[in-house]
């Protein structure tokens, strides 16, 4: 049953057909290349779903944002991603829109508004919120459309994103392309829901079901929806009913549509069906449509020829685009020299770490209107569970954004807004909760610069608090999670040990162009007060600092273990061992120059951290010292971290399982035996 063709402007329908024809030819071009063996990459065909993006295309411009998934080539073609760069990217070539480093499942082309493509089901929705949030905060009328399949409705990220979009009334459209099957598993095997629109209604905003195979109905429905979202009426969830004619991955026709199902589905296939409707309605002659198809064939042939002539992206690109500055990549023994901050002689004020953090946030917001904060409970009252935001919402209004308890939504919103130049600062209450949003941090924020061939980057900062050391927080609020994050190329990580450094490092993170994580120890949040520089104050990333000079051994450490090591050094001094304490301050970029420089002087090194010793940063540093300074060492460098157990609730166990003054002293003594 098709909507009356008279309800759409004939020229618009012709244009929609032109986009469908382009999509169809791209699909055919890829399948022909794959089945002949000329191309070798994994392809998730979208055959049958062409009408959805083609019908939307006339309603949006390159200024509007789009996020899609690995089965999203049709979305990209209709959004305007250049076909030469699209094919070259799928083939891993230099001419790809992302230098061949992302591939077809990770296309980003900001020039057309195709901002991000994810290969993680459902993960685009939280990021789309961020794009929409940035535009809402800037007061533009741009809309963001995030495409995903019906299978993605099962995943938590989509639910978190929909809830946040509803409560914040974000200008985002959740475009659920419902082809009735999630990869290989059909409805109703994976859900008992009768529809997906009710989920939006349950979260307080509109859910609309449209026939995604009828370009007339779909275009007209989307026109009203896009106008509404553009006007600031909040998000809409669209359930676009369609069918996937191809397999989950590969080429050819679906094996999952049995018997006559495939023939029936093909009869409803919008590409040939729309062609026939245009002829039947007298809008186009067959010859005019042949011309459209021929133009698409020629465009695709030219794009494939161009892409095949582009060089396969070479090894020289391997370490580029991990970070903005290639020197951030840790290379064993490569001693990058970075200048330390000049000695501060100006005005100071007494602050604890939580106050210094607030000062950094406040000054950063003053300095740049793109800076904003989001996190759980950061509004007044209470002004953040750690009091870092006390009074901030009253002062800054919407730039301080208390969120639902939904870490994926928080990190996704930060990531998406950072893609368009915002500088978000997110608070993840406890470092243990990073597990809840690991996908958003590691698969998206951290990898996006690389996957996009540096066409995009993510200048966001995430603060997280480690509760360990205090006692009584238990295994899920006490862990030191930095090693998890250090293993993720693309992130920068700082771990201050003083209020001044918390301020100086945080401001540097906020104005850095890569995703940064500041870990703050609750052992230091309130207990330690000192004179902190007033006004804009920044400490460069990747610069360690000697906190106690010594001659006999270097204790390399960071965070609250600096305090422990300084006390241990005083104990050791009584025994005639003069220890140098080197505070890393930044864990990545790692200051190998100052680490090796100090150990060259002392001849011995022990790396101390509160994180589990096994496979921790200490092992990496100790190994590097042993390899680089083998002939200069008086004893092998070693490492000392927490015992291999979750942090216990018992204070006695916790004290014993993490390095403490007595156990550090004992370890150093052993090294001098």
């Amino acid at each position: 049953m098709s909507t009356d063709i008279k309800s759409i402007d004939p020229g618009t329908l012709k244009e929609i057909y032109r986009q469908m024809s382009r999509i169809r030819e791209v699909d055919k071009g890829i399948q022909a290349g794959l089945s002949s063996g000329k191309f070798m990459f994994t392809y998730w065909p979208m055959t049958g779903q062409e009408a959805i993006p083609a019908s939307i295309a006339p309603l949006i411009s390159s200024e509007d944002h789009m996020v899609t998934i690995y089965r999203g080539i049709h979305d990209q073609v209709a959004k305007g991603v250049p076909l030469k760069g699209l094919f070259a990217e799928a083939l891993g070539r230099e001419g790809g829109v992302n230098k061949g480093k992302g591939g077809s499942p990770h296309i980003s082309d900001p020039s057309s508004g195709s901002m991000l493509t994810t290969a993680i089901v459902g993960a685009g929705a939280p990021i789309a919120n961020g794009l929409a949030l940035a535009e809402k905060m800037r007061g533009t009328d741009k809309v963001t459309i995030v495409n995903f399949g019906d299978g993605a409705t099962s995943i938590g990220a989509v639910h978190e994103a929909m809830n946040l979009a509803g409560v914040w009334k974000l200008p985002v459209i959740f475009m659920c392309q419902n082809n009735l099957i999630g990869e290989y598993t059909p409805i109703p095997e994976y859900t008992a829901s009768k529809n997906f629109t009710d989920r939006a209604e349950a979260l307080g905003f509109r859910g609309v079901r449209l026939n995604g195979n009828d370009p007339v109905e779909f275009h007209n429905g989307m026109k009203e929806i896009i106008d509404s979202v553009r006007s600031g009426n909040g998000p809409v969830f669209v359930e676009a009913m369609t069918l996937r004619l191809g397999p989950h991955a590969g080429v050819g026709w679906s094996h999952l549509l049995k018997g006559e199902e495939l023939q029936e589905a093909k009869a409803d296939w919008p590409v040939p069906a729309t062609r026939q409707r245009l002829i039947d309605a007298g809008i186009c002659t067959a010859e005019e449509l042949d011309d459209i198809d021929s133009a698409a064939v020629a465009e695709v042939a030219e794009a494939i020829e161009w892409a095949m002539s582009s060089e396969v992206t070479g090894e020289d690109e391997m370490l580029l685009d991990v970070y903005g500055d290639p020197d951030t990549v840790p290379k064993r023994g490569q001693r990058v020299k970075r200048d330390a901050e000049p000695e501060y002689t100006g005005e100071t004020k007494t602050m604890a770490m939580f106050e210094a953090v607030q000062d950094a946030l406040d000054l950063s917001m003053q300095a740049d209107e793109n800076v904003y904060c989001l996190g759980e409970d950061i509004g007044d009252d209470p002004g953040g569970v750690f009091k870092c935001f006390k009074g901030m919402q009253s002062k800054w209004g919407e730039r301080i954004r208390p969120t639902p308890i939904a870490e994926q939504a928080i990190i996704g919103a930060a990531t998406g807004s950072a893609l368009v130049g915002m500088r978000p600062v997110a608070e993840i209450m406890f470092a243990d909760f990073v597990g809840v949003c690991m996908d958003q941090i590691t698969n998206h924020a951290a990898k996006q610069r690389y996957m996009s061939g540096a066409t995009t980057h993510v200048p966001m900062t995430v603060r997280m608090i480690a509760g360990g050391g205090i006692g009584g927080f238990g295994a899920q609020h006490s862990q030191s999670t930095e090693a998890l994050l250090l293993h993720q190329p693309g992130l920068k990580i700082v771990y201050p040990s003083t209020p001044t450094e918390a301020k100086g490092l945080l401001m540097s993170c906020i104005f850095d162009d890569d995703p940064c994580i500041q870990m703050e120890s609750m052992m230091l949040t309130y207990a330690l007060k000192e004179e902190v520089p007033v006004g804009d104050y920044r400490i460069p990333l990747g610069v360690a600092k000697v906190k106690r000079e010594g001659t006999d051994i270097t204790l390399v450490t960071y965070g609250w273990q600096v305090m422990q090591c300084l006390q241990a050094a005083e104990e050791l001094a009584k025994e005639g061992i003069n220890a140098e304490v080197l505070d890393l301050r930044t864990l990545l970029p790692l200051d190998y120059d100052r680490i090796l420089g100090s150990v060259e002087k002392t001849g011995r090194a022990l790396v101390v951290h509160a994180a589990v010793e096994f496979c921790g940063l200490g092992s990496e540093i100790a190994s590097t010292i042993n390899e680089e300074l083998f002939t200069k060492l008086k004893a092998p460098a070693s490492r000392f971290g927490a015992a291999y157990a979750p942090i216990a609730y018992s204070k006695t166990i916790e004290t014993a399982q993490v390095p403490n003054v007595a156990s550090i002293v004992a370890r150093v003594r052993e090294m001098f035996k």
Partner: protein
Amino acid sequence: MSTSLTIPKLQMSSTEGTLAEWLVDDGANVEEGQPIYCLETDKSVQEIEAPAAGKLVHKQAAGETYPVGTEIGEIV
């Protein structure tokens, strides 16, 4: 311009494929999109369609398994 036909890599796990059956005789003309041979992999049997129109030249026999990338025919 001729189009080479090689055993395709259609699944991430594919390393080889069996040319189960030629559906078009050696030397016959094929239309673009016409099924030309059956490919059997560990997952399924699939009809592979001609990526271009022209005369099909068989270069390998049916019933054998070949590594991904092996040229099995050509459309000239």
